[in-house]
């Protein structure tokens, strides 16, 4: 974007993510591999750094998007200043003894394990032995009544989906009563690694921080004192209390892998290949101003305005001055995230109205619209039918707008139109026809851009989805120090079980730029 008028401030780089929701089949592989990697320990049985929700649905933890209740994120006070919704500093300290806005375990779910032993140790009898569920917290037999993905595939929608905070009034009723005709899509969620993280700002101990080099938001396990204000402040409820260690834990964006130039575990194992990782350069001096944008609906553009064009020589010069290494600038130019977020503008942030400037963005799903077109007897493949549906269908459009644009349906409609036009054009090209470039032009794409965007979204080669520059050799001392410590050490007796530190076994290597590194996986 041209930035002639304003000078560029302090340039910072962040590893950001985009997810193409049309491709998510809700298989939960990301959640499971994440859990196996990070939260398969006592104290965080209930925590999912990555989870996949079915929308519409109340989500995990229940109704976490209801900020009237949970007080997450930022808001503007009467004078237009940015303040945490959970209150000012003194108010926060006064609620240290009992935090009134902290979700209880019942808002997540009671974690369970099973009596697996019974399967092999039960005495011989006429019936097959069963493994009964037991609470992982109390060890007692329990009934499973809720879970992190309880509403998978709209399960229980007649009972629960109306409680989705993104649905109001008549919609809630309609979704409740017409759930089998309603739309459905999956929403994978992890920590947003926000530019203006509310959790960091709420931490009384100063234990949470955003890393200067790559923007990853972490909890310093040695400085966390368990005041649990971060859990309340995070509007996405992606910081968790480890009840065994008494410390906060959160998604680490798999920083040991990122430092080695590898994608996060959730991205690496994504079956649908819907995740993209890449650098975004941003102007750190403009973050506060963007987050305090008066109108919620302008927050999306304000956040895009904070991002810098890595192709702009002025930006590159400012980035060099800020100490961003040359190979990172090169990676920023090849960033699929920059293309989807700022160049083609098809990716949108989740709940920009929380004012945290989240850094995991989503390409909104076209499938709810296409389903509705088919349901109404239309032709999914006729762009005119789909265009008409995009402008006419209130429920899916308003719903997506509530998720991704603070309620602005025009922006969501614009993105969906773009995807429809692209779909129509590339479909014609694949069938050997010329393709109608006028359709592309109407949504602001040239034929070349159309093919480029199609390649990024549909072909989605491994090397094009993940452009992760490795951490720098001059940082090797810090990385070596890191090897001695696991960021999520487990609780328990320090002396027992061969020492409490778990080695991650991640090599501290520096990859060559991707051309010479991992082979093509896709």
């Amino acid at each position, binding site marked *: 974007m041209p930035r002639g008028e304003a000078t560029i*401030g*302090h340039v910072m780089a962040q590893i950001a993510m985009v997810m193409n929701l049309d491709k998510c089949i809700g298989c939960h592989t990301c959640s499971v591999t994440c859990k196996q990697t990070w939260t398969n320990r006592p104290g965080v049985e209930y925590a999912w750094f990555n989870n996949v929700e079915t929308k519409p649905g109340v989500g995990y933890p229940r109704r976490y998007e209801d900020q009237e209740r949970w007080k997450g994120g930022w808001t503007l006070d009467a004078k237009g200043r940015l303040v945490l919704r959970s209150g000012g*500093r*003194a108010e*926060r*300290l006064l609620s*240290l*003894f*009992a935090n*009134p806005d*902290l*979700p*209880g*375990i019942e808002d997540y779910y009671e974690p369970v394990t099973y009596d697996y032993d019974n399967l092999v140790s039960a005495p011989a009898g006429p019936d097959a032995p069963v493994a009964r569920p037991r609470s992982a*917290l*109390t*060890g*007692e037999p329990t009934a499973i009544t809720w879970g992190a993905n309880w509403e998978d595939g709209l399960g229980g929608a007649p009972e629960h989906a109306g409680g989705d905070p993104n649905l109001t009034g008549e919609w809630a009723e309609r979704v409740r009563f017409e759930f089998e005709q309603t739309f459905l899509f999956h929403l994978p969620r992890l920590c947003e690694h926000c530019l*203006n993280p509310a959790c*960091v*700002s709420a*931490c*009384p*101990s*100063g234990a949470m*921080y*955003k*890393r*200067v*080099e*790559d923007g990853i938001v972490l909890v*310093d396990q*040695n*400085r*966390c*004192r*368990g*005041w*649990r204000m971060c859990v309340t402040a995070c509007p996405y409820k992606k910081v968790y*209390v480890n*009840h065994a260690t*008494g*410390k906060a834990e959160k998604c680490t964006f798999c920083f040991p892998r990122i*430092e080695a130039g590898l994608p996060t575990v959730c991205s690496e194992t994504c079956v649908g290949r819907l995740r993209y990782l890449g650098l975004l350069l941003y102007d*750190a*001096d403009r*973050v*506060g101003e963007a987050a305090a944008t008066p109108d919620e609906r302008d927050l999306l553009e304000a956040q895009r305005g904070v991002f810098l064009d890595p192709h702009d020589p002025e930006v590159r010069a400012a980035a060099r001055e*800020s*100490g961003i290494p040359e190979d990172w600038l090169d990676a920023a130019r090849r960033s699929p995230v920059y293309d989807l977020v700022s160049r083609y503008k098809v990716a949108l942030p989740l709940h920009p109205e929380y004012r945290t400037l989240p850094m995991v963005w989503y390409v909104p799903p076209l499938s709810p619209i296409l389903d509705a077109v088919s349901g109404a007897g239309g032709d999914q493949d006729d762009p005119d039918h789909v265009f008409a549906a995009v402008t006419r269908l209130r429920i899916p459009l308003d719903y997506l707008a509530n998720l991704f644009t603070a309620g602005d349906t025009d922006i969501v409609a614009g993105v969906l139109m773009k995807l429809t036009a692209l779909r129509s054009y590339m479909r014609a090209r694949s069938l050997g026809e010329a393709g109608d470039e006028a359709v592309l032009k109407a949504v602001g794409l040239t034929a070349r851009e159309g093919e480029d965007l199609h390649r990024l979204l549909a072909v989605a080669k491994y090397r094009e989805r993940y452009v992760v520059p490795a951490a*720098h050799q*001059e*940082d090797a*001392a*810090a*990385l070596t120090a*890191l090897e001695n*410590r696991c*960021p999520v050490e487990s609780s328990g007796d*320090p002396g027992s079980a061969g020492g409490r530190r778990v080695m991650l076994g991640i090599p501290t290597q520096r990859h060559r730029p991707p051309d010479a590194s991992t082979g093509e996986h896709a």
Partner: protein
Amino acid sequence: MSTTGHPLAAASGGDLLLWVAVPYICLAVFAVGHVWRYRHDQFGWTTHTSQLLEHRWLRWGSPLFHLGAFMVIAGHVVGLAVPASWTEAAGIGEHAYHTTAVWAGSVAGTAMVAGLGMLCARRLLTRRIRLGTDRSDKLLFPLLSATVLLGIAATAAHNLVGPGYDYRATVSVWFRGIFGLQPRPEAISDAPLLFQLHALTACLLFAAWPFTRLVHVWSAPIGYLVRPYLVYRRRATTPPPVSRGTAASVPRADHL
């Protein structure tokens, strides 16, 4: 009070043990224990919150206990550290002092006992929390309860229903002697049993302090009031970049 040349010479062996040796040992453990814990166990240094697992009892119990404890501690500072002659010089008579102390102390003590009772009850009755109770909690909760109950029992027995006992002439003298490095064991040796037991359990509580979750007291996040909202930290050992005009502090990371 003894007026002999050296007060320790007149004290019996038992008094020396209970009112000189035990307090100093406990204070030494308190000091050395904290240094050791701070240097070796930052990861274990936490409030160890259990609000996630149970919040209904905690909602009332924890504020009652903590606010009550603050008042009780303030009362002890005034009652133990400030000599009676000072308050009298400030124009507060013995009667006025004790009336205030008994009333304020009763309110604070009741809040603290009620809060601690609720916190103990949830720990015992909620299975999730009972199972998460570690060895240090099993030491801390009974010791703290005993100290608090003995303290409030002493006040109730002697100053609320009893004729009144001027601990400022005895227990306080002993207390100040400990910290003034001029031990006065004879000052407390004739105090009523409840006051003596309260003083001893308090000593033990100080000795146990560094090894329990009580260490979180020293982490009271007062600095949060003046800290910039956003915290950036470097992963690397390279010097931080110039930061201009942002509400950001860029402290050096020595780990992670």
